[in-house]
């Protein structure tokens, strides 16, 4: 079991994954192909440990379930074995959100162009991952489709590039928009519907150490049939909305408040309604020039 450990750099974190389930290792090797993999050594400090395995004979083989172990503990209920790889991604989200209080973390998709970061923040289902995947496949550099990671001292946004998780209709939509995009397996019947991961563009992965400052904070809302509409909103309102969507704002106290205010002070803030991805891309491309 130990020999199968995968040690890799994901954004600012060194993560170790152990799994006896082949599809998990295959999916990681496939979707994280351009990442930096390490060998275990005395000069390597691993931030987080995840193991994805069958919990025991009864659950693992008779009920075909899988469990996610975070350095040995199990914060979650087991899932069907078919969802082993998504479990790794969800587990990693949880670990970062619940352990990392040295950055400000906001639940948002993040992309960059010409040295400026665009933060797309919104409730699940608002279409931020879709928009993020669309922009990432049209020349924007991916930072993350899950969280904005912000340095508390400098207020820079730190890339934490990972596969983009797309749900339901968004999978086909992005597949058509970006025929070159590589997708992992498709997972039907997860709690979020059908799920598939899009491999991040090689350039985004290789430039994973290049931070940038936020220039636009946008709250997207996909609404079927709606016009593409970008509306300015107040900065105070933006701070409150971002705080509500932060994973660790409460744990950070004044550090988080100050960092958030400083970042928003330097950003343009909008609400954005859309239904047509191509129009949305054109609009953000214009914004970036």
């Amino acid at each position, binding site marked *: 079991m130990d020999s199968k450990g995968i040690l890799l750099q994901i954004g600012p974190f060194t993560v170790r994954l152990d799994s006896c389930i082949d599809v998990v290792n295959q999916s990681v090797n496939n979707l994280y192909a351009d990442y930096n993999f390490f060998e275990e050594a*005395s*000069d*390597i*400090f691993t*931030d987080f440990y995840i193991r994805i395995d069958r919990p025991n004979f009864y659950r693992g083989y008779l009920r075909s379930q899988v469990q996610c172990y975070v350095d040995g503990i199990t914060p979650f209920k087991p899932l069907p074995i078919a969802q082993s790889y998504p479990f790794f991604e969800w587990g990693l989200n949880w670990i970062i959100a619940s*352990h*990392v209080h*040295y950055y400000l973390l906001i639940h948002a998709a993040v992309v960059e162009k010409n040295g400026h970061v665009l933060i797309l923040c919104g409730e699940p289902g608002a279409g931020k991952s879709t928009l993020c995947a669309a922009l990432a496949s049209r020349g924007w550099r991916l930072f993350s489709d899950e969280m904005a990671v912000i340095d508390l001292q400098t207020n820079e946004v730190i890339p934490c590039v990972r596969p983009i998780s797309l749900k339901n209709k968004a999978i086909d939509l992005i597949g058509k928009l970006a025929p070159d995009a590589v997708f992992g397996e498709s997972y039907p019947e997860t709690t979020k519907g059908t799920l598939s991961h899009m491999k991040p563009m090689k350039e985004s992965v290789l430039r994973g150490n290049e931070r940038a400052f936020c220039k636009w904070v946008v709250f997207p809302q996909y609404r079927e049939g709606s016009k593409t509409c970008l509306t300015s909103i107040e900065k105070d309102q933006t701070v409150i909305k971002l705080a509500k969507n932060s994973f660790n704002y409460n744990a950070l*106290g004044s550090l988080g408040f100050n960092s958030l205010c400083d970042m928003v002070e330097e950003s343009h803030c909008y609400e954005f309604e859309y239904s047509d991805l191509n129009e949305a891309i054109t609009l953000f491309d214009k914004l970036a020039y």
Partner: protein
Amino acid sequence: MNTQNPLIVSVLIDPKTSLDLNLQQWDLLIRQARRSGVLARFGFMLERNGLLADVPSVALKHIQSTQTYAYQMAMSLKWEIHCIQKVFDTLEMPLVLLKGTAYTVANNVAAAGRFFSDVDILVPEDRIEDVERALIHWGWKATYLDAYDQRFYREWMHEIPPMEHMQRHTTIDVHHNILPRTGRFCPNPKLLLANAVKVSDENAWVLSSEDRVIHSATHLFHEGEFDHGFRDLSDLDLLLKEFNSLDNFWENLLKRAEELNQQIPLYYALRYTTLILKTPIPREVLDDCKLWYPNGIQREIMDWLFCRALMPNHPSCDDYWTGFARWVLYIRSHWIKMPVRILVPHLCRKGWLRLTEQEDH
């Protein structure tokens, strides 16, 4: 059992040993410390010893991360206590805090970086109803509404079911004693309240220094689950080191344990803090309390169990027998807290709920 101490044990005994660690060892140390709930405490210890600057940056960020969280938690706790104080003002009775919250308010060394999930308070048994009613009036609500749980708490336990504040979602445990009514060594809670001391500049009270140690010992050595066992042992280590400088502390401590009928927990506390964390306790104190525990074989067995169960709750600190030792002590904790006629049905019920997944723990 490992002959070598786990890293977190070594650094709590002597923080300077952290200077010699390589990155892989830091990696393990951080995991052990985090899982046993002492990572922030270790950070503050490094700070007090001027060693924080020597910590490699990859490890330091994890330490500072949890320190930030601990600091924020202490801030929220202050507000929470302020809110509870207002309720107690209306009742015109003193607010007596226990455990972690008491350490924080009393500014004990053990408070720095200590996490807690609820506020524990002690009130006279004849005021329990008043307190409960007042808390409900000020926004707390009862939990564990199931009839069995209500009976379990109210008839047998030393506390009423935990109450949760409806807006802040904080929990308060209202105790009328420090051990269940059904326990074999239940102390007289009036003695605890009689010696409680007011914290200067605060409208709150804590148990006397001796009683704080004894309560910590009683709690740990009646405990059935050892997720925080090592952290609690480290609490005792820090409290003992801090109170060492008080006049006649050791003499009073031993005397007090007898008055409260808590000789055995105190004996264990002194024995395992010295065995595991090398707490400097005067020789004669250790000799004196040995009288409380004469049976050689039983001592061997308890050493075997506790030296495993009290290790940090991380796989790297376990040996082949750790799980078994914790299981035996789980049974023991119920055994000494409840008579068999209550214990057997209670454990059967718990076992059934766990099996049918109606209960997580």
